[in-house]
């Protein structure tokens, strides 16, 4: 695991694709939300988050993801997760994220939904 959180993002056709690495905590959650908000007014209605290199998430990080999910819901958008570590998947499941967000097998799979 890397010491510092990092991410890359691509915004195309109203879809924001983000790939993260490192601990998703308060700092990371803020960065992810800021990136989302940057594109919100440009009409983003689909966020795809690849968490392959993020193995740890705390509840503050989860609260930021819930915020993004809620904002997407307001505009009938959706959040998709890719490559979830089993521990993170269990965390998201208990915290109720899958009521409004979905898992996808690939970026292409999420884009086609």
């Amino acid at each position: 695991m890397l010491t510092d959180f990092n991410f890359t993002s691509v915004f195309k056709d109203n879809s924001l694709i983000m790939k993260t690495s490192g601990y998703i905590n308060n700092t990371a959650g803020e960065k992810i939300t800021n990136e989302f908000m940057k594109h919100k007014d440009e009409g983003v209605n689909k966020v795809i988050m690849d968490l392959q290199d993020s193995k740890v998430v705390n509840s503050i990080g989860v609260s930021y993801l819930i915020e993004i999910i809620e904002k997407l819901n307001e505009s009938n958008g959706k959040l998709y997760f890719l490559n979830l570590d089993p521990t993170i998947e269990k965390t998201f499941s208990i915290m109720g994220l899958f009521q409004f967000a979905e898992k996808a097998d690939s970026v292409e799979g999420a884009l086609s939904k």
Partner: protein
Amino acid sequence: MSTTNSNIVDKLSLQVDSFQEGFEILSESKSINEMAKQFATLLRGNFLVTDVNLFYKNVSNSTWEMIYGNKENYTKWMIVNNSSSMQIEYDLNEDVKACVNLPLVDKSVMGITIGAKLDKSDFTDFDKITLQIFLQLLDNAYQSVINRQKEKKLIFELNQRVLQLNNLIDTGIDLSKFENRQLLFQLALQRAAVLTDTSHALIGISKDEETLEEIFFPPGLDSSIINESENKISASFSYQEKEYNFTLANKESRTGVAEYTDLDKLLLEAIARQVNAAIENEFLHEQSLIKERIEQELNVAASIQQKVIPQELPKIPGYDVAGINIPSREVGGDYYDCIDLGDNRFALVMADVAGKGIAASLLVNTLNASLYAYLDNKTPLVEMTEKLNKIIFNASPSDKFITYFITILDAKTGELDIVNAGHNPMLLLRENGTMQKIEAGGLGLGMFDFGLPYEGEKQTIKTNERLLLYTDGIPEAMNENEEEYSDERMEEFFLLNKTKTAQEFVDKIVNDVKSFAGNAEQSDDITTMYLIKK
């Protein structure tokens, strides 16, 4: 009721549905800004006004924040007092026809300014009543939104507790699986950080106040971040003289750093205990593997030892001989043998190595091999014993030696050639009932290598005379009261059972020793050999 009042009530009745709809729209707002926007729309539609501004002042913030509209300087019209009830002022000037101060359920305040109507008419009594109803709807909707947010927060916190409990259980299971100490520490830190919403974590391992190792989460963290933090908690345990200190630093919240709670401390202590248990289990597992290997080695040594203890004694013409060895542990330190040397000559040997286990077994084997070699060469007993002393001295550590008794019996004449190297005296029971103790010899084999001479002795065994060889496992056998079987009891038993055959005597003395010891654990090997001249 006056006609005017009756008209107002009638008109309000017609608007019930629209009020209901207004409340639903307001209460579905996701944020205070959205609610302000919806409320402004309601006011515009109902009063046909264009200029509506809304301001908000929360509990802790004493300044007004514009949440809808564009007349920021209209905060000057906000009513400045601490009244807990709604206040409305009308006709402040041409641009501001109404100004509202609405205290809300959470002690925050909403301020509203409403501009002139499009038709420039004044607010009627009906308008004023309608505005009051709308303001009541806004108050109720705000309360509903606040309750929904509280409910959401409560659900989040409940889910978080479930998650913490789940994580704690999973962590216990996961930690117990790790054999790699580094991975174990990393997982423990990771889980402790997640469970407590912590930014940074450290396990410091020290011995005698000297730091041996530090493990960080996230890996590669600069230790000063934790050392210099004032927002931290710790837990520790000691195991095998090492101190394991767990530190969590910088608890997170959405608004920055939060204070650690008692629950956080409990969770950290629980993780530390789980790591303690995992390390202890790992150690116990290693110990059980070592024990298993030692037991296997002892079994091998025991099987080798059994090969040097005679399974059956040779027949000695004109004599009755029997012997037994009962080791107290897997591998004993006692040894006996009756060796046919040919020409009616037999060597009767009894020995006891100081100590038990593999080391004793190795010495017994050394003695056995050397003994056979010298006996084959017909080396005189005293000379042979001196040579054996040198061999055992060189082959054993300083705390190991062997007491040994050997006699060569000439079966034809009954002559006994004897050497006793520090062993218990041999007992020779004469036909007339006298008991002779034969002690001549010297120090135990391997004790010293000073060239001290061993002395030999010659005796003759006659018809109906009996010879008893034994190790100290018989007279020193202990019972539950830590009393010894004793030489006296053994000698008395010898005298009382002189009519028994050799095998009967051996079986009977073993039973007597066991019966004396009762439930006490056998403290030493029991070995004896008995010879009767018929």
